[in-house]
């Protein structure tokens, strides 16, 4: 091997290695920039006043993000309540009940829908769901319920995709064994196959939760955005993500740092969700 070739081999090896390290560098930089700007702000406001305060009036020096934390938790829970049962049942349909011809159309259609931009969902929510809720329940139409329905719809494709592949991964012998013991098709699917796919389905749900809690553009359109603790499911809420996107444009000083600190809280939520996602996925593999 000539020296020239050897040199280029070495060079490219190093270039590949550096490229591989870019993702590590990116995570480190993201953590660094978010935490370095956010954590001092939390300390300055004091963690108790920041995380436990119910008053968000940045211009008067009140930086309590409890309403936003609760807002994120409310709409996430709502989205999960709306989206998960329908999503799992639909995944069961796709995996075990769907006629082959229909499946060939439905599967790519649902996969495609996972890619619909969130701003388009937000637009749909604003022009269809909000007026609908206003007519049904009165009020402004923007609030926890509307946001929950919106988010529930948004996570359907994600949950269906993951849950379906989990159900399909269950060995056929489980199903056949149940049939052999006299179970009907439905009983075999629900009581033998589905429990075996539990961890995969759960992973799909957690992936959905991660999606919902980080969702910004769709929620901002339909949740009402009032930074107060809501008193009913029709009340308007502001989530952690909306808080950032609404005020970042004009914030400065401690206000801006408090918004970055909001991102710190969001980031911690996401990290916890991601870790439990990988933990469940790995447990399912073993």
């Amino acid at each position, binding site marked *: 091997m000539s020296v020239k070739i050897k040199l*280029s*081999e070495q060079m490219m*090896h190093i270039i*590949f290695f550096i*490229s*591989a*390290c*870019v*993702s*590590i560098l*990116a995570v480190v*930089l*993201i953590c660094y*920039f*978010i935490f370095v700007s956010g954590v001092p702000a939390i300390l300055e406001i004091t963690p108790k006043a920041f995380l436990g305060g119910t008053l968000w009036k940045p211009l008067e020096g009140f930086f309590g993000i409890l309403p936003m934390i609760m807002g994120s938790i409310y709409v996430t829970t709502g989205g999960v309540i709306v989206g998960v049962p*329908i999503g799992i*049942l*639909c995944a*069961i*349909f796709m995996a075990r*009940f*769907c006629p082959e011809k229909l499946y060939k159309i439905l599967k*790519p*259609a*649902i*996969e*495609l*829908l996972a*890619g*619909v*931009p*969130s*701003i*388009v969902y*937000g*637009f*749909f929510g*604003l*022009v*269809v769901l909000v007026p609908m809720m206003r007519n049904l329940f009165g009020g402004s139409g923007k609030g926890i319920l509307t946001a929950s329905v919106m988010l529930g*719809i948004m996570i*359907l494709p994600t949950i*269906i995709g993951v849950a379906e592949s989990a159900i399909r991964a269950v060995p056929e012998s489980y199903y056949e064994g149940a049939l052999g013991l006299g179970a009907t098709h*439905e*009983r075999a699917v*629900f009581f033998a196959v589905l429990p075996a796919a539990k961890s995969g389905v759960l992973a799909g749900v957690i992936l959905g939760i*991660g999606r919902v809690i*980080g969702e*910004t*553009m769709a929620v901002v359109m339909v949740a009402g955005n009032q930074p107060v603790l809501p008193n009913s499911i029709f009340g308007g809420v502001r989530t952690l*993500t909306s808080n*950032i*996107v609404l005020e*970042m*444009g004009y914030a400065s000083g401690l206000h801006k740092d408090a*918004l970055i600190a909001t991102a710190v809280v*969001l*980031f911690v939520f996401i990290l916890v*969700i991601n870790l439990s*996602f990988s933990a469940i996925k790995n447990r399912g593999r073993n």
Partner: protein
Amino acid sequence: MEMVQSLNKTSFDKQNVQGINKQTFAQKMKAYKKQPLSLFLLGLVVISAVVTIGILAFVIGYIVLNGVSNLSTDLFAWEYTTENVSMLPALLNTLYMTGLTLLLAVPVGIFSAIYLVEYAKRGNWLVNIIRVTTETLQGIPSIVYGLFGYLMFCIGMNLGYTLFAGAITLAIMVLPVIMRTTEEALLAVPDSYREGSFGLGAGRLRTVFRIVLPSAMPGIIAGVILAIGRIVGETAALIFTAGTVATAATGLFDSTRTLAVHMYCLLSEGLYMEQAYATAVVLLVLVLGINALSSYVAKKFTKN
């Protein structure tokens, strides 16, 4: 003889033959009567499927039908004015943003996948860390990317709201998508290809670029197209990195708005609902078209 004849007669009389494992509809209903729980579960599953498909079809149908009727040639004028909120500048900006982001993300994504699959030793601790970080990157919400981009590129590097700052931010965001799909495509290339290449005296680098990459190309292209879909549909990460100026960019350091950001601006101003309908359908068709192309490429070429 007579018996054979009659046997032949019956076995050819196919219309009247019925498999004993096939149930007629009436038999199924009778069985369900004895099993109310099964009927209930069947009902649940079918209703959920119908509801899901109905809702998703309604979302798409509503946006397309209302959008198309609001489309007009005025919306594709070269200049953006407050009287005519043309989306053409935003479309051009989307094109620039996509091109620039891919320019940054694709080489890094493909090279790092090559490192992971072709160079790194199995069970290497670095590989494990890279896997964890790519998974983390995939889970980070786009608004956090936006804040990070704002802090690092716009403030830290003093770039301000620019096309370039937006593109780097998006490049980091789509990096895991490209990495993962490329990795999968590379892993799908049979080892015999590599062995054959080595056996003929090719070095590692030549094997990667001449043998492995060409065979993995369809998978990689599908991943890149998927990344384009993400870029085109992204809003939250761009508002605070590329800004919201509504004219077409003339250089790397101009503030721009892509089509998705344009849509957000129209909605938050609340004055241009008809134009927002039209923008929504263009954005939706664009993104769904790109995603469909991606899965078409992936399926078409993996069969051969």
